[in-house]
């Protein structure tokens, strides 16, 4: 899944859950605040995708998505995983956090940290 489709999926999920047609755009920033449990994120995190999306009223957000069947590490130690275990984790999970703002129907992120390091420091926009 590329960056745009991942973010679009998230944005659409959030907006579909939070937003009803009768609300004015200005209401979106308020309505989006809360903790959202993932219902669907497409095929990338199946089977049994798990996820959470938090928007706080002070502009903080956090997002986590992952497969429900990530492997446990045989070593029982996070710093002693095997190459296949580490690869499965990176492929099957994505978490990031930072600040967000809403302008019109655009959702703007400033990503402060991400398990996909390419995103760290970036400012993607979705609509």
């Amino acid at each position, binding site marked *: 899944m*590329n960056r745009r489709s991942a973010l679009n999926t998230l944005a659409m999920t959030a907006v579909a859950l939070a937003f009803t047609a009768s609300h004015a755009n200005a209401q979106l920033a308020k309505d989006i605040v809360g903790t959202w449990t993932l219902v669907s994120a497409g095929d990338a995190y199946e089977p049994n995708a798990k996820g*959470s999306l938090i928007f706080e009223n002070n502009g903080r957000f956090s997002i*986590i998505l992952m497969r429900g069947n990530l492997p446990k590490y045989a070593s029982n130690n996070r710093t002693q995983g095997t190459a296949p275990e*580490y690869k499965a984790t990176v492929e099957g999970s994505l978490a990031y*956090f930072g600040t967000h703002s809403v302008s019109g129907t655009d959702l703007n992120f400033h990503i*402060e*940290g991400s398990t996909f390091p390419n995103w760290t420091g970036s400012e993607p926009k979705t609509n």
Partner: protein
Amino acid sequence: MNRSNALNISVITTLGLVLSLGGTFAQTKSLKDQLVAAWTLTSWEQVFKDGTKRQDFGPNPKGVASFDANGHFFFMFAKPDLPKIAATDRTKVTPQEAQAINLGSIAYFGTYAVDEASKTIALQLESSTYPNQLSVPQKRVITALTADELKLTNATTTAGDGSTINFVFKRAK
């Protein structure tokens, strides 16, 4: 020491204790109510039984702990300088990149409950980038909670090696 002096000392001692506790825990609201917020990580350090210390996410870690009023939480910690994936595609991560990312980051979420008496947060994990965490009941002890600062300890690491992780957060503005 006569009785009057002993009483004075005990009063002073009591006041001193109350004042010092007042600096560590605000007293008017429940811990749960004070906890509800987003907290930014300022320090993460694991202390092992032999006294050695390790900072898995570096001296200037990035991270967040979010607790919402409905009992949901999210934790994430990461090194600020994790290597980018050269292929710009998570499914094409190299073994070296995957190792660096896993050593330098962790994220997990679920629901939480606060035991006010023991100042302990019981975490019920929904999922984690380190799934072994789901096998060990996860507890975090609140060692300081003020308007600006939150300190937690974790003695429930999966390795069961008697180590303790100390977290320091500041309230996210």
